[in-house]
C-alpha cells in the first residue's frame, strides 16, 4: 500500500532545526517558551535558516568578513578621566528590587 510516512515527508519536508535545538537555543537565550510554542518557533526558525542558506550561493573565498560598514576606521581613545558621579539613587529609581544600594536577585549558589 501507500507509504504514508514517505508521502507525508514529501508534503512536509523535514525542518532544518529539531525541537531539541529549539529548546537548547531558547535556553542559551534564557527565553521561556510554552510547550505549544515550540513547534511554531521550530517552523519559523527553520524557514529563516532555509532563507539564510541562500548565502551558500556566493563565492566568498577571497573576501574578508565586514564587521563595520565604513572601512578603514579605527577606535578612538578616550582620556583617562573620571567624568561620572554617584547617581545610583536616580538610576535605581525604577529598578525592580533594590536594597542598601544593591540590585537583588534570587540567591546565586556558587
Amino acid at each position, binding site marked *: 500500500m501507500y507509504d504514508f510516512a514517505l508521502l507525508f515527508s514529501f508534503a512536509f519536508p523535514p525542518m532544518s*532545526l529539531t525541537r531539541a*535545538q*529549539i529548546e537548547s*537555543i*531558547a535556553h*542559551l*537565550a*534564557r*527565553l*521561556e*517558551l510554552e510547550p505549544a510554542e515550540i513547534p511554531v*518557533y521550530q517552523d*519559523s*526558525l527553520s*524557514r*529563516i*535558516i532555509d*532563507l*539564510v*542558506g*541562500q*548565502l*551558500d*550561493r*556566493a563565492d*566568498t573565498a577571497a*573576501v*574578508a*568578513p*565586514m*564587521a*563595520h*560598514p*565604513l*572601512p578603514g*576606521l579605527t*577606535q*578612538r581613545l*578616550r582620556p583617562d578621566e573620571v567624568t561620572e558621579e554617584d*547617581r545610583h539613587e*536616580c*538610576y535605581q*529609581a*525604577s*529598578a*525592580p*528590587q533594590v536594597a542598601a544600594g544593591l*540590585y537583588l*536577585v*534570587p*540567591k*546565586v549558589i556558587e
Partner: protein
Amino acid sequence: MIHRNSLTQLAAGLRAGKFSSVELVREYLARIEASQPSLNAFISITGAEALAAAAAADREIAAGRGGPLAGVPIGHKDLFCTAGVRTTCGSRMLGNFVSPYDATVVAKLKAAGAITLGKLNMDEFAMGSSNETSYYGPVRNPWNTDLVPGGSSGGSAAAVAARLVPAATATDTGGSIRQPAALCGITGIKPTYGRVSRFGMIAFASSLDQGGVLATSAQDAALVLREMAGFDPKDSTSVDVPVPDYGAALDAPLAGVKVGLIREFIDEGLDRENERRIREALVVLERLGATLREVSLPNLPLSVPAYYVVAPAECSSNLARYDGVRFGHRCKDPRDLQDLYRRSRGEGFGAEVKRRIMTGTYVLSAGYYDAYYLKAQRVRQLIAADFKRVFGEVDVLVGPTSPTAAFPIGAKTDDPITMYLNDIYTIGANLAGLPAMSVPCGFVGGLPVGLQIVGPHFAEGRILNVAHRYQLETDWHLKAPERFA
C-alpha cells in the same frame, strides 16, 4: 490650517511672529488626541511638558534668540531615550522604563529648539516592517486605516503623514524609515552609518542601525537632519566629519547628474503598477537634466539572507541586558535566577523579537559561526563592493522602496519570511552603510508609492538635492490623506 505648513514654513513663521509655538503645540496636540483611536501613532503624549517648552521657546524667539528649530513641534520614535519620559521601544519589556538620560539626538534637537510632543509607536525593538509587533497595538495607515503604515517606524510615518507633527525622528536598520515613508506617502532619510549618533538610540543591530528623520519634504528633512547629525564622542562608531548645510545645496540643478537604476530591483517581486510609478519618476529626473543608465549589483539579491544573519546575531546580544535585574519588566515571584531570566524575558518580549533573538543565538553558536555569521559578513563585503563599483560610474542610485503599496493589517503575519521580503530593496543600503531616502512618486490604487534614492557615503546633500529638485517638479509630496489634509 496650521498643519498644512511645512516644517520650514513653521520655523520661519515662528520667527516672523505669525504664530506662537504654544499655538502650534496646542493645535498639534489636539490633532494627536483626536487621531489616537484610529491611528494609534503615539505611545506617550507629553502634552504638559510640550506646552511648557513651547512657552519658553516663544520667549526665546521674542528675545531674538532660539535655534534653527525654535518652537517647532516634533515627535520621537520611542526608541530614543528621553529623560524623565517613558521610553518603551514598543515593548512590554520596557513598559515601565523611564529613561534617566536623553539620547544625543534628542538633546541636539532640544538644543535646536524643537518641542517634543510625544513618543511614537513602533515595531517592538525596531523589528518589523508593518508596525504590527508593537505591544501597544498596531499603528494604522492614515491613507486607509485597515492597512499597515509600514515599519518599524510606523508611528513616526503615520504621524507625519496625518500631519500630527511636521517631522519625526525614526531609525532604519533594514528599511525602517524608508519603507514606512513609501507606504505613507512622505519623505524619509536614513543617513550614512556613523553620521547620526547612536548614543541613547536603543540598539537593535549595532552595525546597521541609523537614526534619521521623516518629514513631508526633502527640504524639511534637510533642516532637521542638519541638527541631528554630527560627531558624538559618546558613540565610538560616530564619524568625525563636519555636517554640511544640507539646505544650502538643495537647489543645485540636476544637469549632468548620473543616475543609476538598479537592475536587480526590477524583479518579479515588484508590483507592476509600482514599477510604472518608478519609471515615471525616472522620466522626471531625466527631464531635470539627469542622465539615466541601468546598473547591476549582482550580489544585491543576497542582502536579505545576509541581513537575517547579521541583524539577529547582533540583536541577540544587544537584548541580553533585558533580564529583569536592573530595569524593565520582571516576572512575579521568580523561583530562582534562571526562572527570573527565562520568565522575565519570555513575558517581556513578543514573538518576533524572540524569533530574532533565537535566530541570532543559533547563527553565533559553536559550529555555526563560520557557516552563517562569518559567511554573511563576507557576503556583506561583496554587496558593499558592488555599491562602491557602481558609484564609480554614477552619482546616485534609484529604484523602488517597497515591492508593494501598503497591505492589510494581519495579511503577512503568518509567515515571517513574507514579512521580511518587504525590505528587499532597502536592506542593501544598511549593509553597506550608505545614505538612502524615499520620496513619494505617485499612487497605485489610491495608495502612495515611494522612490528610493541611494548615495555614496556622506552624500546626504546629494540625495537630498535630487529629492528636492524632484519635489519642485512634482507635487506627490504635498498630497495628504483626505481625513488629515
